[in-house]
């Protein structure tokens, strides 16, 4: 209760901050004049192939005929197409969702193309009867598609439609920004006083308009679904009219090393917090512990996990031996779930089938698979709770408020022999206690009594790689070597993935190809290929080509050197979000080739990314008689860097690439 009052307070504060500026929507449907075609290049973005002149949306909560309320979303957009590359904006898709009971439907679509012909504006209307196509993606999803007729370079197009949605708890998010520039983007939210919504805003731009008004409206709710006399209610209530607009919104640009562009886009989302008089009072967003309790009682989430689940006996009994301690049990159960189920959807918070059906079908969502894992661990008396999170591609979730629409993934936290272990059984090649990278996206929440906060920032994980190379003059006079490489969690998973999907032979071929034809590779081996709890250890031997040249130039790091700067782009707009911290060590021990003397070796160096040493490059060379030793280590101790730190990172890797490209030079003895 306290929390919801707090939220309300935020909203009120917001309301008072709204200015009363009279910034009106600059365009109106159907009002297009020859003057509108004059601009050929917009100063907002002189390279744009199309400019969105106005993007105007609204959401209005209205009574419906199903005994409740619907969200009426209106969308109006006008676009000026400047050249052919902007034609894709003339193809419009509208996604509609239905879960059987609740649905979204499309209404009042109109679309018009305007062209300037001999100084006059000529209109071509879309024939909405014959030229709007429907694609039923599956049972739940439908896409309505159309394209504008009569498109030319310079055309102005506009369209308008409404979708009526039964999903009022999380109305559609409004994105002020997209891949094309917008001269004006505006959203109005008409929220009746009996529904209290919270606003979640994100982005770096300032609002041009931010205002609120209060009006009165009549609400009529009917229930035609009951066979008996239909219920009918009508009442007057105040409506808060919130309006936001931003002028001159630049196009969004994607960059590498970004977890999700969704984390940077200028947008506003809405969540229903509570309902009030004249409706019965109800709180939708409660405190985290309360939400955790509700989730655990919910039949699409935790209710089955909380039961005795005697039916699990026949699965678990053959897996477990009498003397197994908690860890052995947990490992066996984890491996069984991982090895027997295929995860077909990795973006689900709730279950679509119950756990018994999951066991029958052998395929399910992350939620189903990890809730089964949780139930099985509980069955053998290991404390286990589901943990919910938002995956990287889904953007960050606000950790303070339980806004469930932001969460899209379930893992499991078990307490095994007194230690917390996080488990995800959806990845067939993942080891016990490891999580896929998609899970490292800020804070997660355990669905237990305390709704524990779990830190899953990428800065917490470090990917290691250790490479050991020996090169000697063997007895037969060949210059020959061996390489051993131990990969980290994710490197090991990549290797397993490659070998499983393409076969060991093809994996070896790729390695040989990468080493080039100067080296012949043999005695290739991989350890721990099927023991997912251990890192992959790859090793092989090789002979180096030697044609008796006067001078040998040797790249001592072979294929392990960075040949390219991973930070290619010269500029950066958004923070750099790497998948993990890194620690890579290459150590080379080599003998001077027989019959040669050292002419020159690379010099040792230590390079720091910044004063704090968040990145360290340590390159050390030493020589003792015929033996040369090289130790090269790159560490990045943070995964997240500010956009301002980008140049440091780029320069750091410039130096790494340069140093690692240096060669050892040997001269033939005279």
């Amino acid at each position, binding site marked *: 209760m306290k929390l919801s009052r707090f939220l309300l307070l935020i909203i009120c504060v917001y309301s008072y901050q709204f200015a009363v500026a009279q910034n009106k929507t600059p365009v109106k449907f159907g009002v297009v004049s020859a003057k509108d075609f004059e601009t050929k290049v917009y100063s907002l973005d002189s*390279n744009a*192939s199309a400019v969105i002149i106005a993007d105007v949306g609204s959401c209005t909560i209205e009574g419906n005929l199903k005994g409740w309320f619907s969200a009426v979303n209106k969308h109006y957009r006008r676009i000026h197409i400047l050249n*052919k*590359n902007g034609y894709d904006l003339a*193809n419009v898709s509208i996604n509609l969702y239905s879960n059987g009971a609740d649905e979204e439907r499309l209404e009042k679509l109109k679309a018009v193309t305007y062209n300037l012909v001999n100084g006059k504006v000529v209109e071509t209307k879309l024939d909405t009867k014959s030229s709007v*196509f429907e*694609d*039923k*993606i*599956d*049972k739940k999803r439908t896409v309505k*598609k*159309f*394209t504008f*007729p*009569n*498109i*030319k*370079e310079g055309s102005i197009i506009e369209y308008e439609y409404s979708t009526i949605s039964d999903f009022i708890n999380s109305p559609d998010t409004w994105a002020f920004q997209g891949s094309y520039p917008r001269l004006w983007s505006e959203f109005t939210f008409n929220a009746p006083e009996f529904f209290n919504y919270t606003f979640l805003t994100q982005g770096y731009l300032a609002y041009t308009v931010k205002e609120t008004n209060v009006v009165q409206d009549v609400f009529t709710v009917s229930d035609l679904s009951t066979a008996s006399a239909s219920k009918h209610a009508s009442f007057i209530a105040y409506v808060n009219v919130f309006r936001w607009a931003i002028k001159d919104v630049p196009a969004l*640009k994607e960059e590498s090393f970004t977890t999700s562009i969704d984390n940077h886009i200028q947008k506003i989302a809405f969540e229903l917090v509570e309902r009030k008089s004249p409706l019965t009072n109800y709180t939708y967003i409660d405190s985290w512990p309360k939400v955790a309790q509700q989730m655990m009682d919910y039949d699409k989430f935790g209710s089955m996990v909380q039961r005795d689940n005697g039916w699990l006996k026949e699965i678990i009994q053959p897996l477990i031996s009498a003397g197994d301690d908690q860890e052995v049990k947990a490992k066996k159960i984890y491996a069984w779930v991982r*090895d*027997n*189920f*295929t995860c*077909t959807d990795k973006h689900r918070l709730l279950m679509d089938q119950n756990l018994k059906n999951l066991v*029958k*079908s*052998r*395929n399910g969502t992350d939620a189903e698979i990890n809730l089964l894992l949780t139930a099985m661990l509980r069955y053998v008396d290991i404390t286990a709770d589901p943990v919910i999170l938002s995956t990287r591609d889904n953007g960050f979730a606000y950790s303070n408020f339980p806004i469930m629409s932001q969460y899209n993934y379930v893992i499991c936290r078990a307490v095994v022999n007194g230690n917390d272990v996080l488990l995800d059984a959806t990845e*067939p090649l993942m080891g016990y206690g490891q999580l896929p990278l998609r899970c490292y996206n800020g804070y997660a929440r355990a669905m237990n009594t305390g709704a524990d906060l779990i830190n899953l920032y990428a800065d917490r994980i470090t990917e290691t790689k250790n490479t050991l190379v020996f090169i000697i003059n063997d007895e037969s006079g060949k210059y020959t070597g061996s390489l051993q490489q131990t990969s980290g969690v994710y490197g090991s998973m990549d290797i397993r993935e490659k070998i*499983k*999907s*393409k*076969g060991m032979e093809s994996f070896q*071929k790729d390695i*040989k*190809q990468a080493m*080039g*034809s*100067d080296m012949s590779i043999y005695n290739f081996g991989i350890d721990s290929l099927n023991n997912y709890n251990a890192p992959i250890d790859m090793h092989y031997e090789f002979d180096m080509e030697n044609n008796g040249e006067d*001078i040998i*130039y040797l790249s001592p790091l072979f294929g392990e050197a960075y040949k*390219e*700067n991973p930070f*290619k*782009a*010269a500029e950066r707009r958004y923070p750099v979000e790497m998948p993990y911290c890194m620690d890579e060590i290459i150590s080379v021990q080599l003998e001077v080739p027989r019959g040669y003397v050292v002419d*020159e*070796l*690379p*010099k040792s160096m230590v390079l720091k990314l910044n004063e704090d040493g968040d990145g360290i490059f340590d390159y050390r060379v030493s020589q003792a008689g015929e033996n040369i030793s090289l130790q090269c280590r790159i560490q990045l101790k943070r995964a997240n860097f500010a956009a301002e730190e980008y140049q440091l990172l*780029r320069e750091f*890797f*410039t130096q790494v*690439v*340069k140093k690692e*490209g*240096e*060669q050892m*030079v040997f001269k033939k003895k005279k």
Partner: protein
Amino acid sequence: MQKLSLLIFWMAFSCQAFAGDDIYSVATIPAALLKDASVVKRMELVRFEISLTNEASLTYKVAYTILNEQGDRWALFQVGYDKLRTVSTFTGTLYDASGKKLKSLKKSDIKDESGMDDVSLADDNRVKWHDFFYKGYPYTVEYEMVMNYKGTMFLPSWTPQEIYNMSVQHSLLQVVCPASNPLHYKTFMYNPPPVITADKGNKIYQWEVKDLQTKESEFASPAWYKLTPSVFLTTERFTLENYQGSNASWRDFGKFVYDLKANRDALPADVKQKVHDLTAGLKTNMEKITVLYKYLQQHTRYISIQLGVGGWRPFDAKFVVEKKYGDCKALTNFMYALLKEAGISSLYTVIRAGEDKDYLIKELPGPQFNHVILMVPNGKDTVWLECTSQTLAAGYLSNFTADRLALAVDEAGGKLVHTPKYDYKENLQVRKIKASINQEGTLDATITTDYQAEQQDRIHQLINGLSKDKLMEFLKEDIDLPTYDIRHFNYVEIKSELPVVQEQLELDASNYAISSGKRLFILPNIISRSQRVLNEMKERKYDIELGMAYTDIDTSSITIPDGYTMEAIPAEVDLHTKFGNYQARVKLEGNTISYIRHFECFTGTFPAADYEALRQFYDKVYKADRSKVVLVKNQ
């Protein structure tokens, strides 16, 4: 009586399938079929039955034993359907290694989803699919399916071995066809004639394979269907909705294609007038074609709508005039109409676009096409027009449709024609670099490159598809240099039947020259390094088919900092092979490294025995492209 034969046929099926619980036991797979296999096709029965009324049914049954993860995709069974083909039966069963039945799929397990491709605004493709998602290897899945065809234009083909790591225990194809409507077929890697039996006015054709072992995948091998037993089918007469056609000859099939588009070329008066306005005063046909093609490009765009017969019949010219869009058929037909109005005759030409230039099975007239272009005879020459592009030069076909057979149609029917081939002399990349390297090793380069014909296809797409700032972003990440920045770029397109894109880049690359103590290592080949490396193979089995032919010519001069003496310089390389020629020469004169590279790659089919020679050729080129000049600082 036809029904009776079907019943007997099905009883034969049943006996085989349910003779014992263990027919799918893994133990009964011959050892030879397990070698290098991820999946074994245990049995496959394909029965395609064509009625006198040109309706047809496909009865299909297959069982795969999946041995490991790489075979998992065969546990997924999917059937595409549309307005002309419906699925009436879809069942599946899962067996364990011993052949014991584990479960059968329920109707509700079958997914039914849109099969629409990404480019279309509308089509009627849908997919039914199911996957057992089982992981207890080895396991066996069995699927049965019945499909009903309205019309017989598209017949199934039969390639029992579907991928190189699949072996096949047994597969049978039966086609029942009215004797009055002969079946045409073409087989590959299958020598004996089919077993043909007569049954009450029908002919039953049968092909069968047993015990096919896995194959090895090889670089640049011929199309899969040429390496393993395959049968392709058509019937002499067929229907598509209410349209009847004949596959008796290319002429006949072409006539069918033509009739679908005939009389759909009427232009409104204002467009007719426009054609006359545009072409008035132009002397040659080529000038008129160029002007009208430009008009098409400026006034239309590509939008794909494929519904029912609309997959083969174009929207008429009036539709394109009104909507200003169309698919390949509609736009080609519209261009045909524009030319016709200008008094130039042209031929609507169906073709298979994409990678496989050698797609056409000549001996089997029928619907082997997926695209339409326009052929305009012009005296001795022929002008080819790709009508879906808003940017291509008139008369140029990109590698999307170049160098392959196609079927040109007119009122007399169809005839096979060959689209232009761009050889190594046309597909040029001529690059000149003027560069200097400073004391820090930073390279400062001005690079001008002329790309011609197929070598310009990619860059043409880029410069026409990206805005200037997006192009800059792209260039800043596209070039194979360690750390660099583009200062300036410019493109000029010279549109002709052999189009050229002239590129100018100014860039600097830090640490391009690697200074290692007193030495400076410089790679004279700055951005034209071949990436091709082949693995050694003990025994190459198949012919080698080398695709696009081209020539790359590089001339660079690189100024080096003062105070260095040469220690090593790459030796001159001069290779002459049947696959191509390569010359590279590096010289240091004063403070300037001059580099010349001439690389010709030929197209063609070469015997498997040539593989090692090809590998060595690529390898020598790869190494030569990476050999460095070594300089030592004067003491």
